[in-house]
Each structure stands twice: as structure tokens, then as C-alpha cells.
């Protein structure tokens, strides 16, 4: 089936690598709460506002890039894993893909609504940070789960 919105199948494996690296570094970031010094860099910021400080527009600012790198690894890896074509990308797998995406979107927003009601302060901020990645994660989990159960169905063959 011709689809122009998916990556080629060969992006899947590098995707897992980027995603895996992102997850490992993400845990390091969360547990040690420290970033490597050499990643302290001056970067161009369109907008920068530190807590209780005025807004800075279009200037060079000092920042640590560790978090940025982790986020980009997680998102790019997640996108490649989620949206690379299967070996045989046919209409049935498209249906599974669509169903998984709808399901993941529901779960993701359910988690946000739940958090809005029950979680406050900086804990809520963490939820929002995780939320940058959870839509992709929920999708990947659901999609692979469904693919596995379809494979299980194959036992009735011939």
C-alpha cells in the first residue's frame, strides 16, 4: 500500500537505538539531577524567561543542553519507531496503526485530565514534561501489543 506519511522500514532499527539512548540518559537526568558541564553552552534563544525575570527575546543565552538532547533523542527515536513502515505495510496494518493512534490519544488525554484534577505544583510540571513523550510511548506500546496478538491469531493457519 502506498503511504507517503511513513518513514521507510530501515528507519525502525536506528529509531530503537535513539529511543533506547534517550531513555537511558533520561533516567540518568532524573535520578542524578545533574548535567555534564561541557554541555553548558551559549545558544540562540528566540524567547527565554527565567522564573521571576523579564522576558528576553532573540539573544544568546547560557544553558545546559543535556535536557534538550534527551528530549530530541526520545522524540526522534519515538517517531522513527512508531512511524516507520512495517516490512509489509498493507491495509490491515494501517487499520491497526490508526486504532492504536486513537487509543493512545485517548489514554494520553485521560492521563492529563486526571493529573489536572489530582496533581499540583511542580509534580504537575513533571507530568507535563513526561507528556511531551507519552503520546508516542502509548502508541508504540499499543501498536506492538496489537501486532503481537495478530501474530498469535496465526496459530489457526491451514
Amino acid at each position, binding site marked *: 500500500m502506498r503511504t507517503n506519511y511513513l518513514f521507510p522500514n530501515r528507519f525502525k532499527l536506528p529509531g530503537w537505538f535513539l529511543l533506547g539512548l534517550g531513555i537511558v540518559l533520561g533516567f540518568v537526568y532524573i535520578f542524578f539531577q545533574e548535567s555534564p558541564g561541557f554541555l553548558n553552552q551559549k545558544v540562540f534563544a528566540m524567547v527565554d524567561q527565567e522564573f521571576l525575570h523579564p522576558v528576553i527575546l532573540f539573544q544568546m543565552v547560557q544553558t545546559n543542553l543535556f535536557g534538550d538532547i534527551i528530549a530530541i533523542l526520545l522524540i526522534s527515536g519515538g517517531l522513527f519507531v512508531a512511524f516507520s513502515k*512495517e*516490512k*509489509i505495510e*498493507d*491495509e*490491515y*496494518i494501517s*487499520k491497526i496503526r490508526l486504532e492504536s493512534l486513537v487509543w493512545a490519544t485517548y489514554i494520553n488525554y485521560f492521563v492529563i485530565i486526571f493529573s489536572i484534577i489530582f496533581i499540583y505544583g511542580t509534580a504537575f510540571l513533571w507530568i507535563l514534561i513526561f507528556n511531551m513523550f507519552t503520546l508516542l510511548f502509548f502508541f508504540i506500546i499499543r501498536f506492538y501489543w496489537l501486532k503481537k496478538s*495478530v*501474530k498469535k*491469531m*496465526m496459530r*489457526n*493457519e*491451514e
Partner: protein
Amino acid sequence: MKNSLKVERAKKNLTQAQLALLVHVSRQTINAIELGKYNLSTVLALKIARVFGKTVNEIFELEEKD
């Protein structure tokens, strides 16, 4: 939707994998169609019918609940 895909395959001595290859889908897709778990597209129905030299209606038919 009911289908007689399994019977037609048996008549032609085709495995799910062989049929899948002929119509460019995965083996899982053929399996899901046979089990009635997936309503295939018109294009795929036409392709499958062509493999068996039949019309779509001879292999796939509507059920009461459709």
C-alpha cells in the same frame, strides 16, 4: 461479511502465505480476513477474486448483521 476464502484456497492448494504474496499483503492480513476479523478493502477483494478467477460476490457475501 462472510467469505469462502479458506475453501477457495484449499481448492487451489494455496497456503495463506502464498496467497498473501500474490496480492501483496501480509500473511496476518489473509488470516484475519479468513477469521472474519477484518473487513478488507474493495481493491483487495478484487485482487483476491482475480487470483481465484472468480467474481468478488462468489467469495465474499453480506451477512444479516451487515
